[in-house]
């Protein structure tokens, strides 16, 4: 029995007629050949989030970002004029990786007047210009003005730093994000500067993990413990239903009507939840952030979480208790990926607030391990190729839309490549 009104068509899925209701193939998540296409068709065309402005706190700040599955490493800078820029992290001289710390496989961050290559001491400004060539007189007809770093298209939305690896991006960042995600401009992300970052190397296709976080149908069965310590709370037959789904171009969102644990009787809480006044939906005592543009677009009563899935690989989770989480998924092969999860809070001012944040961060990891732990089993099952197609329910509409969109982007890429070949 539906607890929330559905669109006039009767289901969310049928509200978007292009989606169909038939079973869906996941060949896109097990095929090495598809992955090769996807890298070019999706990751070399879409705008990709590589960090937040808070990671570039001052003019002269920089960080490197490795995208090994795409065979790309970037360095993102805030130059002397405050402009955010991105470059390929490669020295113009002999192609050495420019910025790294520890080993070339590790990322680096810092603040500098210039970026110095460890190999032959060539130096670059934060604007990418070549500033110094060691023993310049030894070179032939050298023009430093033409030996800068290779720039990458870079733009910022609501403090999220995006890059585009295409030669000429097909859309500006704002065009790409569209009205649904664009409405978050002005949400006070920049007040939540206290960050907990997590990283996992998972044995699954990147899309399979996104699928786990774009439906809540799995929550009562897999995360039974999350519901509470009592048998009444831990009811695996509990039927989850999201209050609202929305699709805008390649982007998707789902709104949940909240588990407002701060309203629960103490006997249904874990003692540590009651102690810290915190848990899976965050600290119970929310900071006052004033107006919150863009959230809860359908005006759901008892709004809980907005889960924005920004194509292809960024998820922004905005909680009713005024904190937010981002997930990013970077493919490293057709059946492995790196997962990055960042939790953002208004900075704690006392130990009690710190512990509320800590308990939320612990909770994220404990239940996230259940998601990750299940994941390689899904990949193994799919790679067995027993079934060609799989049924998806109405609560899995975003899974359906996501795989369809990736397929369309790959089709478009192949079509364009085919046309190019004919010429």
């Amino acid at each position: 029995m539906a607890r929330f009104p559905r669109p006039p068509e009767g289901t969310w899925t049928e509200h978007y007629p292009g989606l169909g209701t038939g079973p869906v193939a996941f060949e896109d998540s097990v095929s090495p050949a598809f992955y090769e296409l996807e890298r070019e068709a999706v990751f070399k065309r879409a705008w990709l989030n590589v960090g937040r402005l808070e990671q570039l706190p001052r003019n002269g700040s920089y960080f490197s970002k490795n995208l090994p599955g795409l065979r790309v490493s970037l360095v993102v800078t805030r130059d002397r004029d405050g402009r955010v820029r991105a470059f390929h992290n490669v020295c113009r001289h002999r192609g050495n990786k420019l910025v790294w710390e520890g080993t070339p496989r590790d990322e680096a961050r810092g603040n500098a007047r210039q970026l110095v290559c460890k190999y032959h001491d060539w130096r670059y400004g934060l604007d990418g210009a070549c500033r110094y060539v060691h023993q310049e007189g030894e070179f032939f007809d050298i023009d430093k003005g033409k030996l800068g770093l290779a720039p990458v298209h870079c733009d910022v939305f609501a403090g999220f730093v995006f890059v585009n690896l295409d030669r000429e991006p097909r859309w500006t960042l704002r065009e790409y994000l569209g009205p649904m995600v664009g409405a978050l401009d002005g949400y006070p992300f920049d007040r939540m500067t206290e960050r907990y970052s997590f990283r996992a190397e998972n044995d699954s296709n990147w899309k399979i993990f996104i699928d786990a976080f774009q439906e809540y149908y799995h929550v009562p069965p897999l995360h039974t413990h999350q519901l509470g310590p009592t048998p009444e709370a831990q009811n695996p037959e509990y039927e989850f239903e999201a209050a609202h789904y929305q699709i805008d171009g390649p982007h998707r969102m789902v709104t949940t009507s909240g588990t407002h644990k701060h309203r629960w009787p103490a006997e249904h809480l874990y003692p540590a939840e009651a102690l810290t006044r915190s848990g899976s939906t965050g600290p119970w005592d929310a900071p006052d952030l004033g107006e919150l543009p863009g959230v809860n677009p359908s005006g759901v009563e008892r709004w809980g979480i907005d889960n924005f899935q920004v194509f292809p690989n960024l998820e922004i989770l905005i909680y009713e208790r005024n904190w937010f989480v981002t997930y990013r998924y970077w493919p490293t092969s057709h059946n492995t990926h790196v997962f990055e999860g960042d939790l953002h809070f208004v900075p704690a001012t006392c130990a009690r607030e710190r512990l509320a944040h800590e308990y939320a961060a612990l909770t994220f990891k404990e239940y996230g391990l259940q998601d990750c732990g299940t994941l390689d089993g899904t990949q193994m099952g799919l790679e067995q190729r027993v079934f060609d197609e799989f049924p998806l329910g109405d609560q899995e509409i975003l899974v359906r839309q996501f795989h369809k969109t990736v397929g369309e982007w790959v089709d478009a890429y192949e079509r364009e490549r085919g046309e190019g070949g004919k010429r």
Partner: protein
Amino acid sequence: MSDALLPPEFADVEPWAATWCLATEPERWAMRLASTMDEMQAFYDAFFPRAEEAIAWCDRFPLDALPADAEHLLQLLHSLLMVSYAVEVWHQPEVVHGGSAVIDRIVEPRP
């Protein structure tokens, strides 16, 4: 008593301080996985009843200017939360259905 880590008011939980006053989540996580349920239950039983008092003690100071013993007490509270998942939720050190997955915390606020 000069080598005590905690404020004298929390001398009763001092026996756990050497093991569980750990500054970072990776250290606390590793200690949880290396501990038996009996060890963690004993720490939990001893400290949880005093946790509210310990939080109030830490909050007598600004978070960015905690004296060393209060900072240790806050670390011990962090470990109590780490242990609480094993004791209250999973009834084992590892996450139930966690499989072979690993999630590393690579950035966190201090203290």
